[in-house]
């Protein structure tokens, strides 16, 4: 490696890293400036005490949990069944699960609004509970590519056929096999999919705003227009949540490698 290449490498890397560091620094600094002349946590105190923040935030957390459960209920049996009985269908199922990355979220929700309106055969947007359900279905769809890939990778590391036959010969039904044999074995993979889903749902804006649900993303956008420092404090909080989720993914992945190494 020549000196010239080394210097170029350093310049490019430092330029890139400062590009990433600056906005995070700027955001944090600005969020601390609520009190004139000194740094303080005033904006944080104010926003955490805001009942609307508490309401929207807990709404989004609940929504994320519902999405994760729905995702697990749909993805785990499907991925399991495809591996066990229909390996030829894997490319097709995989293709379908990747579609939410191709079709923009705004288009999908546009379809929901027109397809499930009050005068349709399935009037989900007609009631509050129905709209909540529709939002959860929408989030499950958005999370599908990540969830499916995570679970399918997890299934690859275990012998699905042998485990199923062993469970069946002991008299287990499908529910027992899925819940007590397959799921515990792919739990790490499911967890990493779940954390990613949580990170996506918690700050999601487009679906929640267009379905008019009181979620955290639209709230953040709305107060951004009329409060000076609070939105920046909120952004720091949601950055922190995302990073925590990603940190947990890394941690669970590392733990799984550890336990697998120990088992060998």
């Amino acid at each position, binding site marked *: 490696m020549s000196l010239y290449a080394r210097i170029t490498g350093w310049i490019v890397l430092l330029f890139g890293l400062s590009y990433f560091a600056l906005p995070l620094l700027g955001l944090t600094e600005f969020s601390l400036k609520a009190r004139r002349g000194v740094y303080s946590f005033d904006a944080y105190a104010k926003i955490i005490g805001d009942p609307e923040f508490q309401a929207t935030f807990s709404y989004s957390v609940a929504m994320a949990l519902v999405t994760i459960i729905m995702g697990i209920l749909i993805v785990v049996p*499907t991925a399991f069944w495809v591996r066990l009985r229909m390996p030829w269908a894997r490319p097709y*199922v995989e293709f379908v699960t990747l579609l939410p990355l191709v079709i923009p979220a705004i288009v999908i929700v546009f379809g929901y609004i027109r397809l499930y309106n009050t005068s349709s055969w399935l009037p989900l947007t007609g009631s509050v509970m129905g709209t909540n359900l529709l939002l959860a279905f929408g989030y499950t769809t958005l999370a599908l590519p990540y969830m499916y890939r995570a679970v399918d990778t997890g299934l690859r590391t275990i012998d699905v056929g042998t485990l199923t036959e062993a469970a069946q010969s002991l008299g287990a039904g499908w529910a027992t096999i899925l819940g007590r044999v397959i799921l515990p074995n792919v739990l790490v993979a499911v967890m990493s999919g779940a954390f990613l889903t949580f990170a996506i749902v918690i700050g999601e804006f487009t679906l929640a705003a267009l379905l008019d649900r009181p979620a955290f993303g639209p709230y953040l956008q709305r107060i951004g227009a009329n409060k000076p420092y609070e939105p920046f404090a909120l952004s720091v909080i949601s950055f922190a949540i995302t990073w925590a989720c990603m940190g947990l993914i890394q941690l669970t992945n590392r733990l799984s490698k550890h336990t697998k190494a120990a088992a060998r």
Partner: protein
Amino acid sequence: MSSAPIHRRLPLTWLGLLPFIIFVTLFLILPTIHIVIGAFQDRSGTFTLQNLKDLNTGTIPSSYWISVKISVASAALGCLIGFGMAAAVTFGAVPHWIKAPLMTFSGVASNFAGVPLAFAFLATFGPVGLVTVFLRNNFGIVLQRDLGFSILSFWGLTVTYLFFQIPLMILIITPALEGLRKEWREAAEVLGATSAQYWRMVALPILFPSLLGTFALLFANAFGAVATAIALTGSALNIVPIQLFAQIRGDVLGNPNLGYAMAFGMIVITAIANVLYIWLRIRAERWLK
């Protein structure tokens, strides 16, 4: 009667996928098809191409054009900078331990589009942002007046999008760079090639499908981004997702089917970009195994 067991088993196997099929049909396929069909219908439901023709009226062509420009600019810069950073850590220009944290960070940042990202850039390059104030107080440079840079403009949005574009490039191109074998470089050197010749005649042609494919993916990624743009610019910048958002909220175009056509246009553009990505990726994998 030898075909009887096959007849009985086929439908039973299918049943296992039924929940999945019902779910994706209801919440992914049907809504999309509804939009696509609506794009080819008039208000009374008869078939027409008028909506697609009407895409060429009013502010719609300019919004597509500015969306495409932002997506191309952020994808190109994202590819360039991401490639540089990935190359720096892969070929050992900088210490090796930097690579693992950089990849982890890229995994996080590539998923970080949205409202908070917009606020981060507002707090940094906005009218009273960290960098803006620093430049003004220490160098007397006013971003908007002297450099013509505003965070609420074309370049502002492009710079903001780079925050998730560069990491995505790093994530995808690093495995491709690792696939370049040492032997190829050594063979080129033995034959008397300079470093520049090796890159121009060996490495870049091999990497070309990967680079172009990732560019297409980054393009689609930027084209579909909604939340960042709305939180950052409100409706100041007339890009396709923002206009579609306004149309869904209140039919600003005055024709619901024109809204369908706009959404259809978005699907077509992201679909082309994604198909290009997948096709080029298959080509790239021929070399990089």
